[in-house]
């Protein structure tokens, strides 16, 4: 989260910020988090005018948007134009969740033979419009703010919405999950149980759910800045006597396509091919009909 979001506050009710929710390749869980704000939802719609949110309302609008929440990754040819068009109609574009910010679990195909994937799942792969790589929104357009996580954290969403209404900077911690464990007094699962855990290289925001529930962090909020993933990977291999590929699979999760997790997957394996499609490779290998 780097953007300062200008004030929309103190506006009369008729000039509430106009908000849209747009979906790309995703499970709908992050936009559902908005509807899961059971205690705040009715107050949210008092402060924001929701003008386009197809999952929740039949009223439609093509913008312009003061704030547009974008869920999902760029994953098919039509997405390439659509995100550019949406950006043009949006003042503050906020990406929500691991798909939008990191490419999502579907970005594991970025290490695979896309045509083989498509042929294995679909009887008529030539009709399936899909890009060889699943990529985060920021790879295509400028992003003003992001909420990480698979799914996003409701507390962080409320914080962002509150910041939007008052024009202040959202207070989102930029630190490792380990700090959250220490604050909450959670016993370290790596030290006490020898479980592999990505907590020290993963951005906090979830509230250290996995360690609190007796398992290692699987990195769904993505790498924190300057995370020493290579150091952790070496430690997990040596101290835990784990095969390279097993350590690679730890990084090959919901934010695998974010550096430095991405380099770990490419170096250690963990996906089926272990070979990443070269970034320069055209991302537009599409099926027939488009």
């Amino acid at each position, binding site marked *: 989260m780097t953007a300062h979001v200008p004030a929309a506050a103190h506006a009369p009710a008729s000039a509430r910020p106009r908000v849209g929710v747009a979906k790309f390749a995703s499970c709908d869980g*992050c936009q559902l988090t908005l509807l899961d704000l059971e205690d705040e939802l*009715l107050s949210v719609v008092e402060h924001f005018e929701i003008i386009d949110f197809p*999952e929740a309302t039949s009223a439609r609008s093509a913008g312009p948007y003061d704030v547009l929440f974008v869920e999902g990754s760029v994953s098919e040819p039509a997405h390439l134009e659509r995100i550019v068009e949406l950006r043009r109609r949006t003042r503050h574009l906020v990406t929500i969740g691991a798909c939008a910010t990191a490419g999502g679990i*579907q970005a594991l*195909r970025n290490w695979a033979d896309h045509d083989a994937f498509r042929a294995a799942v679909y009887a008529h792969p030539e009709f399936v419009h899909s890009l060889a790589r699943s990529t985060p929104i920021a790879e295509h357009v400028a992003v003003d703010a992001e909420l990480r996580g698979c*799914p996003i954290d409701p507390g962080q969403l409320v914080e962002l919405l509150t910041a939007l209404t008052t024009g202040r900077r959202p207070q989102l911690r930029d630190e490792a999950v380990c700090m959250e464990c220490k604050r909450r007094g959670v016993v370290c699962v790596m030290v006490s149980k020898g479980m592999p855990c990505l907590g020290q290289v993963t951005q906090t925001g979830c509230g250290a*759910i996995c360690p609190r529930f007796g398992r290692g962090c699987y990195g769904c909020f993505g790498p924190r800045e300057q995370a020493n993933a290579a150091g952790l990977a070496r430690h997990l291999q040596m101290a835990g006597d784990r095969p390279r590929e097993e350590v690679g*699979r730890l990084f090959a999760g919901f934010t695998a396509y974010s550096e430095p997790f991405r380099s770990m997957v490419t170096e250690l394996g963990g996906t089926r091919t272990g070979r990443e499609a070269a970034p320069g490779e055209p991302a537009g290998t599409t099926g027939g009909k488009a």
Partner: protein
Amino acid sequence: MSAAAKKPVEERVYEVGELTRVEGEGSLRLRVRDGEVVEARFGIFETPRYFEQLVVGRTPDEVIDIVARICGICPVAYQMSAVHGFEDLFGVRVDPSTRALRRLFYCGEWIESHALHVYFLHAPDFLGYESGIALAADHGPLVEKALRMKKAGNRLVALLGGRPIHPVSVRVGGWSRAPRTAELREHRPALVEALEIARETVDIVAGFTMPAFARESRLVSLRHAAEYPYNDGRIVSSDGIDISPAAWRDVFEEHHVEGSNALHARAVDGRGPYLVGPAARITLAADQLHPLAREALASSGFAEQIRTNVYASIVARAVELVHAVAEAIDIIDAYRPPSEPLVHWQSRPGVAAWATEAPRGLLFHRYEVDEAGRIRSAQIVPPTAQNQAAIERDLVAAAPEAIALPHEAATRRLEQMIRSYDPCISCATHFLDLTIEEA
């Protein structure tokens, strides 16, 4: 015939390019020529994410984390079908309390999913609003209650799994963490209130005017000897199918529909579309409903219509809300923490196949596991994929009543019909082939 042939052909097209108040991206198209339906299409244009391929090479516990991401609304269902399949293959006997907790987990998901659908996706159609949010402007207290009921469900999932969406604690063998008795008890008051709201919901939706619609459908759900179907039972149908869930592929198949490029699931006996979901469950397992839900069903007067009128699925969901909340309270009252939350297990090669009842209906998973304990291949058949043929058939059945309305109202009515299925297109997409018909 000759007189008719001279008349100009009147063709009307009812189309919604992007359905709203459904999960994911789909469309509908109905073409009527001289009063006859000549095309009925429930289209899917959501991007595929290739889940069956993403899990290849992974371990069973990794699969449980990954398949949750097929659907943000019903992640528990994906985790449950997968974990039971693996435990069955590996011969794992979980602690009896684990079994009860998994039912509770599913209760939580049914509550949040059904509450969302009844109040935010479906009721606005009956009451003439564009959304649950617009409904709240006129009926604030009612929507607030709906939100409290939905929250009670989400909090149950979060209690057991850390968060309501993509919970983290389900493992082969049980749980990475099981709750303490006191933690469960804290949820009781909210559930007691939710039970009253659920019963009131049945009364409210039973008062809605249902569009005229009647058809017999082949209904399919799990059925268990002693309980309303969640995680266990045999696959049964209204016309005599009775198989173990692992045998899904003996009776059903995936099939490519000529000209639509969509894979539908169908029964191999060729008897046409079948329907899964709340209406099927209530019809096939009404005797197993919680007494309070049975009572609500009886007082609704909809037991018969739930079977024959697709729009009445909103009553079926409301009755299942009563069931899920009432059973959740019972489970909490009887709870004793598992003595062994996570039992030891050992992988063995073979086929893991299982079905559970997602909020939207039967969810079948099948995984081939290799000697090293990794997934060799996967097949996932979500409820919406199974319902797709029935949805298109019901578009035809809904047409006479709908097309008598002005064009715009008719289109809305057809959209309402599709919403009656609570389609989850995000779920179905990794499985369905897709095209957009170029207009």
